[in-house]
């Protein structure tokens, strides 16, 4: 187990290291002055230029400047956004929680819907229920997320007018920024009309969460269904029936455990896909998350922000992946032989 943990930590550290180096390289690959791309200060005069050269150690060779860059990244100095003039790090910490919040809700919702549906579908293989669930999941799997989001806005926000179509919470409520998760912030704050604000925030969450859930949920349904079918066809399930156990006993004691353990990592990995989709959905719903923020940065050629945003998102994805890997290992120590990481 220690060897395993060591290996995964090693993987995490090295991957983060490479990500940092990659983001450093971006400063040179983007058009324009690397110094401007790193610091976010456009057209520095000679004195400032010297100062920045010294700060980023660009005059001391490649490795020294890379090392300096790491230290700055860890110190939270990610440069200044060219658009707003505020620190990139602060903007990332403001927008990233909004994205994570959206993705987490969508993930939880799709797990709660997808897993039972997949299990039911797998258990009634080749029956009407299975076919029905499978065809719905196929539709959900094929519909493009952005199109679905637009449709939802059209139906629920414009035609029916029951749900709001943009932002996290109505402008009427002044939610103090604390954790960055809007529901938590509202719960922690001592503002007036807290319940109303909470309801309003919920209403704002529904459409983006749903449009994300449809895709992930159908993916989970398909994964679970396939795994359940495979396991229920296996010899030890037949052996369990031959022992004289009833169907529900077999399913609960032998079926589900064996069906769900191998797909756990795959289920968890859907979260990263979800994050990517969340970025698109954010733009459509004007959700103030990192996706929307980065797309704005790309439009305005705000290179320090693009660099910082990419670094932040990839760090979140990598650390999430590896920590879930370790967590699953702790929960199910069965796959002992899997010492090396798998893609």
């Amino acid at each position, binding site marked *: 187990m220690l060897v395993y943990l060591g290996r995964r930590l090693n993987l995490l550290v090295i991957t983060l290291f490479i990500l940092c180096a990659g983001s450093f390289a971006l400063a040179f690959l983007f058009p324009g002055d690397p110094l401007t791309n790193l610091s976010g200060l456009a057209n520095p005069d000679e004195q400032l230029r010297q100062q920045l050269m010294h700060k980023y150690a660009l005059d001391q060779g490649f490795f020294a400047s890379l090392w300096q860059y790491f230290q700055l990244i860890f110190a939270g100095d990610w440069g200044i956004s060219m658009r707003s003039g505020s620190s990139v790090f602060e903007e990332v910490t403001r927008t990233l929680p909004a994205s994570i919040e959206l993705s987490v809700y969508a993930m939880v919702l799709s797990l709660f819907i997808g897993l039972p549906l997949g299990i039911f579908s797998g258990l009634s293989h080749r029956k009407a229920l299975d076919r029905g669930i499978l065809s719905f999941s196929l539709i959900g799997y094929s519909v493009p997320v952005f199109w679905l989001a637009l449709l939802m806005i059209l139906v629920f926000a414009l035609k029916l007018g029951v749900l709001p179509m943009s932002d996290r919470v109505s402008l009427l409520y002044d939610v103090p920024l604390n954790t960055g998760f809007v529901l938590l912030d509202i719960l922690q704050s001592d503002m007036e009309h807290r319940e109303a604000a909470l309801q309003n925030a919920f209403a704002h969450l529904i459409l983006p969460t749903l449009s994300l859930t449809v895709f992930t949920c159908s993916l989970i349904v398909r994964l679970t269904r396939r795994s359940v079918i495979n396991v229920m066809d296996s010899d*030890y399930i*037949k052996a369990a029936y031959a022992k004289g156990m009833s169907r529900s006993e077999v399913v609960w004691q032998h079926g589900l455990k064996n069906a769900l353990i191998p797909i756990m990592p795959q289920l968890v990995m859907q979260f990263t896909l979800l994050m990517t989709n969340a970025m698109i959905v954010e733009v459509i719903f004007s959700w103030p998350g990192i996706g929307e923020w980065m797309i704005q940065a790309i439009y305005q050629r705000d290179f320090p922000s693009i660099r910082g945003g990419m670094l932040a998102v990839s760090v979140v994805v990598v650390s999430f992946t590896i920590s879930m890997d370790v967590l699953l290992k702790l929960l199910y120590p069965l796959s002992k032989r899997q010492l090396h990481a798998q893609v």
Partner: protein
Amino acid sequence: MPLLDIKNLTLEIDTSFGWVKALDKVNLSVDTKEVRALVGESGSGKSLIVKSIIGALPERWKVTADRMNWKGKDLLSMSDNQRRAITRSEMSVVFQNPLSALDPSATLEEQIAETIPDNLLDKGWFWQRRAQRHSIAVAQLHKVGIRDHELCLKSYPHQLPEDVCQKFTIAMALASNPRLLIADNPTMGMEITTKIQILRLLSKLNKTRELSILFVSHDLLAISAMADSMTVLYCGQSVESGKMTQIRKRPLHPYTKALLDSAPSFRRDLPPKAALHCLEGTIPTLQHLPIGCRLGPRCPRAQKECVKMPDVRRIHDHHYACHFPLHRDKA
């Protein structure tokens, strides 16, 4: 009355080239206190017979039989619950491949505990039952020759060598104290000393506990040591069945003769360095099943009539299905 009586069992399976009769009118019966051997090459459908007896086939496959009786009650017309009650208390199965027949995510203790029915436990409080199950499990493991029972019970299937798992599945099958043990190749892959130990255990149980055994194997030596009677299977058809001694002395079906001849230890008259006898060709695949008697293309005695399925004929309790059985020559 036979314990298990199967007549004209036909199993149709759907493959990519249509429905195929994997089992064609198989007859099989196991009497009380009898050790019945079921012999056939790999791919002759032995395991399919086992699976259709316990009802572990996919639901879309069609199983039909004129008769499939367990102590006079028809198994096929029973509800799932009734059938399960029988497999729970009276029938046990040892599957062919122990590693795939054991749940990979449960310890062996959990798995053997499930097979011990409540009526084997004496009346205790529910918290005492765990300990009782444990002691029964340990006793069973000792019987099949697993000495390190604590390690075995604590392990997951992949942590143990295959022959230990094999012995464990036998112990698990015997734990419910069944009337009939269906052993699908139970000694596969064991070294010879353990094999003898297991065979001895089975014949002892057969004598002391009146356990009937359906012994599915292609190990003719083990079979001749154990079995009272034998059913020979070729490509999903039962070709001959009868008392072990009779069949060995005088096989009537050409396939049985070829099978017995292929085992050198059955041929005392075999001179040193003589070529071993075997039938030409291989067992046909499911796509290319011959019509009529499926041995036809390989049979040394085949004639035009063999494209029709021969009826089962009998001499006393020796049944065979052949148009041109071997005794005709001698007559």
